[in-house]
């Protein structure tokens, strides 16, 4: 199973873990879930679409990351997953 992760659990960062799976599944655990859940999910799905990923399961542990950080962590995790074997 290919797997990749990026980011940290520090304030304003997010720890993103991705692995190959069927379809896209995004699970979010965020300290600002009540305020930004949908936006976080949209940001993650948007980044996957830009990278043309259709079969990835993503787990986000979010400590208040801004959108640019979320996108960067997702992309790094995917690149790491693809580079892993």
């Amino acid at each position, binding site marked *: 199973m290919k797997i990749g992760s*990026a*980011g940290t659990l*520090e*304030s*304003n*960062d997010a720890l993103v873990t991705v692995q190959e799976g069927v379809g896209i599944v995004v699970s979010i655990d965020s300290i600002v879930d009540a305020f930004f859940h949908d936006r976080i999910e949209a940001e993650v799905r948007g980044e996957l679409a830009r990278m043309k990923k259709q079969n990835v399961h993503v787990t986000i542990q979010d400590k208040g*990351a*801004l*959108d*640019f*950080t979320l*996108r*960067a*962590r997702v*992309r*790094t995790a995917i*690149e*790491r997953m693809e580079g892993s074997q």
Partner: protein
Amino acid sequence: MRTTLLFIPGNHPAMLQNADVFGADGLILDLEDAVAATEKDAARILVGEYLKSWKLETPELLVRVNGLPSGWLESDLEAIACDRLSAIVYPKAGVEELYEVDRILSEIEKKHRLSHPIGIIPIIESAQGVVETDDISYLPRLKGMLLGGEDLTADMEIGRTREGAELAYPRARLAFACKAAGIDAIDTPFADVHDTEGLLADARTARSLGFTGKAAIHPNQLLTIRTAFRPDPKDILWARRVMAAAQDAAKKHQGAFSLDGKMIDKPVVKRAEGILSRAGVQDGAIPHETK
């Protein structure tokens, strides 16, 4: 004006998102020493995203990349190339390497269709770099040179002191080379972030040698650096009087004239102009700190 350039660790979202509030003239987003080898990929992607999507106005944005020998330079540049990027800060610079960097940058600019060329601020932090400063200073793309005291003293196998006597020679060379080439001379960061007095003395020394600014490794250093580089109130007063007298003399079609019994000629007027311009720009930038 690059009086203060603030280093920000490239893989640290919390610091990145607040980096623009401290009143630095430029931010050096660091992919080199502040980032562990295993996190280089994460850092360059994060910095790239920041550069491309941060919506607020920022100070000048620079990135310290990893040098050619690391093998990471091209990946770094691929990730960060965008119009928001003003210049790269290039570590352990030597003249030959910088020619190669210039070539790579030209390719990147073409590929990413950038609207302006990416500048270079080389870090002079090896003995070789110091002896090559004159040649480096005239390379294309150069916006300034930054002295790197920590690596330089390590390369020379000498100690680094709080007073910095060991940096006198490289500082002098760098300041002269930059002045001659018309680019900024930026002094090395001061390592002890808790030693405000040491920093003030260090920055004053740099300014007295002709440096135009100094790098900071912590936001709390910025105010001190700015204070050190701000013209003395007595000098501002003197410069104002010189300028007033010069205008007077111009009306009377006099070339040289005297003030307080001293001859004032063109170089003196130029110095007075420089003092007022530095004072004006700095006071306008963060006036509440001038109290």
